[in-house]
């Protein structure tokens, strides 16, 4: 369907949706630049901002550092090498901390301290991202709607509340206006995973959160559901089945092939089917890029390739509570 009908005078709202960038700096910067690049009116993020690994860079004599990345040892000998190394880590979404050998030794076996350090570095990065968004979008009418996903801790996400800006909207667990006629309802939780992530909820709990927020919605038909967790068995939630009885979890193999299954939420599927919003935007399962429909409501998962520095996303044009066009992107 055409985005701009000759007969209709009302302009469609174009959103750009992406998710699951897991701390990748270049991918986040691309997300901000997508506003101008794709000529959209709003940037909507679907959760999972935090990176997954922290690389200790241990200082050695002679102004060098030693670190391990992707299973390889690195002896970094110059500032130039250091800058390149940090760039690679940024792309992968990892954090790093320079430390003396004694400091490194004090962290070994201290998971609580490591988790705290993660929170500190991730919160710092998120705060920087919020500031960057404000700078990049200052002279534009574009808002960026941020939220967390299941991988993000509440401590890190508090950076969204602590930083007040004109352009950045903390959409987490609330209903916010998207344009003159549409609203955005955002929920960042997921169903349980093999990794016991910080913001997992049971399916029943996710359903309760959805229903608790629905009264705040003016018109469900003109609402965009930004639910990090995709609907169950929708094709947007297909991933490897894992045996969590071992650590790290291992793929379940049957008859020589890895087993795939739907890891999404029935509560999300029910919400899409029952409330029939304008559109469902989902992430969480990075390898499950796709589209499906619940009655009149299309649902999408653009997937994620943050680790390669590629921004997978989706442009959606909405008007009058309907999706009038969509386009998967890879930037």
């Amino acid at each position, binding site marked *: 369907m055409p985005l701009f009908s000759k007969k209709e005078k009302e302009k469609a709202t174009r959103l750009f949706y992406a998710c699951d960038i897991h701390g990748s700096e270049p991918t986040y910067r*691309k997300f901000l630049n997508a506003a101008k690049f794709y000529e959209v009116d709003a940037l909507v993020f679907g959760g999972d901002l935090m990176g997954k690994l922290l690389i200790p860079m241990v200082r050695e004599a002679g102004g060098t550092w030693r*670190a391990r990345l992707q299973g390889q040892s690195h002896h970094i000998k110059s500032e130039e090498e250091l800058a390149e190394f940090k760039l690679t880590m940024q792309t992968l979404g990892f954090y790093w901390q320079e430390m003396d*050998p004694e400091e490194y030794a004090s962290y070994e076996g201290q998971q609580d301290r490591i988790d705290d350090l*993660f929170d500190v570095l991730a919160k710092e990065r998120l705060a920087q991202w919020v500031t960057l968004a404000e700078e990049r979008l200052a002279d534009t009418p574009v808002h960026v709607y941020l939220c967390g996903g299941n*991988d993000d801790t509440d401590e890190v996400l508090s950076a969204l509340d602590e930083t007040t800006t004109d352009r950045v909207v903390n959409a987490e667990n609330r209903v916010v206006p998207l344009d003159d006629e549409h609203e955005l309802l955002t929920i960042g939780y997921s169903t349980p995973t093999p990794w016991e992530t910080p913001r997992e909820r049971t399916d029943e709990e996710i359903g309760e959160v959805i229903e608790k927020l629905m009264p705040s919605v003016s018109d469900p038909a003109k609402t965009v559901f930004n639910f990090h967790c995709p609907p169950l068995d929708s094709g947007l939630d297909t991933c490897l089945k894992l045996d969590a009885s071992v650590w790290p979890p291992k793929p379940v193999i049957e008859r020589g*092939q890895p087993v795939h299954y739907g890891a999404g939420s029935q509560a999300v599927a029910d919400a899409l089917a029952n409330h029939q919003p304008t559109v469902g935007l989902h992430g969480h399962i990075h390898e499950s890029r796709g*589209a499906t429909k619940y009655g009149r409501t299309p649902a999408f998962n653009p997937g994620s390739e943050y*680790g*390669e520095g590629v921004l997978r996303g989706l442009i959606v044009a909405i008007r009058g509570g309907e999706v009038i066009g969509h386009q998967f992107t890879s930037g």
Partner: protein
Amino acid sequence: MAEAAAAPQVFTRRASGLVRVMSPYSAFIYNVLTMGIIFPWTYVWAPTALEGSNLVLGIVFAFVFELPIALAYVWLATSMPRSGGDYVFQSRVFGGGFGFTVVFAFFVVWILQWVALSGWLLATLGIAPTFIGLGVTTGVGAFTDIGTWAASTTGIIVISIVNALAALVLLVTGFRNYVRFQYVMWYAILISFGIVLLLFLLNDPASATAKLDTFAGEVNGVQGFFETARAAAAEAGVNFDPPFWLLGTLLVAPIAWTSLQWATYSSEQGGEIKNANVFRSQVFIIVGSLTLTAGLLILLAVAMQKGIGEDGILVASSGYWYGVAEATIGGNVMFPNLMAMGLTGSWIVVLLIGIGFILNSFQIVCNCYIGTTRIMVAQGLDGLLPDWFARVHPRWKTPVNAHIAYFLAALPVIWGFNMVGEWARWTLGVTFANGAVMTLSALAAALLPYRARKVYEASPGAAYTVGSVPLVTVVGLLGFVFGSFMVGSFLFREELGLAYTGDAVPYYIVLGTAVFGLLVYFVMRQVRASAGLKVEYAFREIPPE
């Protein structure tokens, strides 16, 4: 200080997304199955088309040529673990229009020919020899009649359509059904192949000739089959004592490559946290399965030389290359499995051989669907094919539309392949087309560090260099050179395909499919543009700065 000399361990969160590396064995199996150990062409095409060539050495060359291509795919798959596939590899490096055109034309369109070919294999390599063999060993004439019918034009068409339809039904009703079936296929094919090997190894030319005479006598109703066939082959031009030909041996490689090239067809890698273990595991899987398959192909060549001798191989080949009617049994070319059936008096053994070949033929048509429908879904999601192709069945969660489209598109190809006399000659480009995709992907791998630098640098393969040159560039370039030799041979050597016809039609058809692919790209680009959508957004990188 000693502690600092060892690289520090990475700090992880519980929510790391870390997954234990999959056992290589499972991917190993699928790769070996995909490589088509039953493809007979190396054994019936090469010996008389390339007189003086050494089969065993030719297969070794094919392995050596395929190795850098396969390694290049390891780099590609572990650099871009989410996307998977030649379409994305080539789009990232060469651009979306190029990636779409090459993969759509040379895989999606040309693999329709493989759907027809797999039906032909099922009929002539699977069902016909099995029933003919059963007819001889049990004395039940009806079996022989079925076998003869299966090898007839009508039989091949009917079997091909049923083959394609059965694969469609199996795959759309859920991939798990296919996986269960594939498990059975794996063991059946191994058993079947093993029996064929054993039968050749347990015979010698004298005993084999006698047994084949008896077998052919029951089927053809002729006496002295082998003597007659040999004489007819000699009269057709077969030299039974050719001098060794090195170039000819090199040219065996492209033929054997029609099996080994598929080592990369299933290269997919899901990796949340990329690491060197995943990279090394992929090297093991691809090189391991390639080595095993090449080894099996070599074993069969050695076994055939032991069992029926060089003369026997040349006689069998004359039925294929020179079309010597006397060198066929029940109208069938003496493919290795048919000869093996002639070497046994047991209907059980015949059945075991037959089942393996029937199942591997069916495996091939499944592979056709699996690969091409994934490509069509990806291209549909990118807006380069109508959305309809990417739709998933609500209950089965499979891209049923893409499967149905492929089945329907295969029907005229099946008909043409079997009914249009010139079809096989015109479409000799199939060997070139599929190989061209892999050759170009090898080039994409070579250029990955330069054309998609950030993607490359974030990958575990970036650690491997030769001096200052990325190792992927070395293997990719080698793969491109070797691949070019092989696809070039298909294009320009008379013995290997397009040039054999002596006319330009096959070349026009190859060019025509490429032009068709380009046309689809431009049409879809225009259709999307008229709806306010830009297909370039599926490929164009956003600058981060």
